[in-house]
């Protein structure tokens, strides 16, 4: 049992490092971690300032950071699968005795931690460009919420990543999947402006709760961040169960049909 756990951790560590090396030369990550967070912060905070709602500044900064984190995660799930497919290594990874989701966990976690850069970038942009007061009411809760959000988003990314194995057009679908998540999660505006019938969809998304937890920790939302953190943990577990089931199903399908190279 311990040996099995150790070998799994070794695979996760290996894929974590491998992904970090790949990321260093990947223009998409430069874009999602450095360029887009700056632009989204300028756009959103600029819009709120123009609309006379400067008090939404910190909310928009956190939201822009979360978008960067989510972008890195979603791109992660899709691009990893697509990258392996293009490199001709996806079939080998699927065929290897190490479960493919374990490799994906290592790679996704690597990108999730790197995506913290985008949060730093958005805070720096808010501070430098708009001289916003970025006071966090409860720093300890903020850090814990941030880490739990990262884990939860990674798990959600795994759910999507499992389906990306089935298609060559993962890149296209990733682009399309970004904005519904941004909208439903209320990353840049209060969820109350969305129709009530969309709320159940918002409540099953990790970014919604991550954003809420960070907002509550920062003192922007009157809520208990620790309770939201508990919800994030539960949500992560549900995502993991769904991702595991989906991966098994997808893996079975591609092995049965031998269609890995023809999708």
């Amino acid at each position, binding site marked *: 049992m311990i040996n099995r756990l150790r070998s799994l951790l070794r695979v996760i560590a290996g894929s974590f490092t491998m992904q970090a090396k790949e990321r260093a030369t990947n223009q998409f990550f430069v874009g999602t971690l450095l360029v887009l967070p700056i632009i989204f912060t300028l756009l959103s905070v*600029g819009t709120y300032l123009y*609309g006379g709602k400067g008090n939404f500044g910190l909310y928009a900064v956190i939201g822009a950071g979360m978008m960067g984190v989510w972008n890195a995660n979603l791109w992660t799930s899709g691009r990893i699968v697509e990258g392996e497919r293009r490199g001709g290594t996806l079939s080998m990874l699927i065929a290897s005795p190490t479960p493919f989701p374990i490799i994906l966990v290592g790679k996704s976690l690597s990108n999730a931690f790197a995506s913290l850069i985008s949060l730093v970038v958005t805070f720096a942009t808010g501070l430098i460009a708009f001289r916003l007061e970025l006071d966090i009411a409860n720093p300890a809760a903020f850090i814990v919420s941030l880490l739990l959000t990262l884990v939860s988003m990674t798990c959600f990314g795994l759910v999507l990543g499992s389906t990306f194995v089935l298609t060559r057009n993962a890149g296209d679908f990733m682009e399309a999947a970004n904005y519904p998540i941004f909208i439903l999660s209320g990353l840049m505006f209060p969820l109350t402006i969305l129709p009530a019938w969309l709320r159940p969809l918002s409540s099953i998304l990790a970014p919604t709760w991550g954003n809420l937890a960070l907002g509550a920790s920062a003192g922007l939302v009157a809520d208990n961040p620790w309770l939201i953190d508990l919800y994030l943990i539960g949500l992560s577990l549900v995502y993991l169960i769904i991702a595991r089931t989906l991966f098994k199903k997808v893996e079975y399908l591609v092995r049965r049909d031998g269609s890995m190279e023809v999708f």
Partner: protein
Amino acid sequence: MSQWIQLFRSGARTGWSNIAVELTPATVLGSRIPRTILQAVFFILISYAAGGSELAKFALIGNTMHAAVFHSVIEMSVVIELEKWLGTMPYLIASPANWFPAMMGRSLAGYVEGLIRILLVLLILVPFFGADLTALDLLRAAPIFFVTVASASALGWLSGAMSLPTRWGMLICNTIGYVMMLTGGVNFPVTALPPVIQWIGRLLPMTNGLLAIRAVIDGASYADTSGLIFNEIFIGLVYGALAWRVFSHRLNVARQTGNIEQF
């Protein structure tokens, strides 16, 4: 002249073929249309949260234009990039045929798709948001939409030509697209920006065209907005001429040094 027309037509056929490969029902319905619409929805909702329905209407017009412009900048850049990715650039250089009409033809499909995006956003989002915009006003502004997308296309060519010897073409043209969103008065008026940014915005395509479109929609005549339209056309021609010079230079350098395959 007839040779130019022939080259243009064959370029247009190739451009259409490139796009047609990607236009499966799944990618159109699952990716292209949702991406275009939802990106606009996202920014309109931010504007709504910031400044109510008036700012939302402002953002609706801005994002309609930007949806097409963003696509055009990327597609035109890709027209040049694609030759490099597919390994056909050496043939283009070696061929005695003039590349200009061929590239113009290649760009046609992207330009038309940009215009279709405008139509899509307007058809879906004007009734969805209940915006106070009449079909007649929008039709009056249609020629300026055409001019503005063409002008932005020239910037896309320039971006493609400049990034030709690098591997960062997609990141560069994406960044340009988002910077235009920031400086072009898409979500809030250009006048709300710092003077230096306003100045940069005025030198980029779309800013003047968008101002003219807003004015015409609000009832101004073409004579009233002729200055803005002239500026838009002039800026487009300048970027087009620059793109021509830079691309010619790149091809000449590639011929002289024989390093075209190293791009």
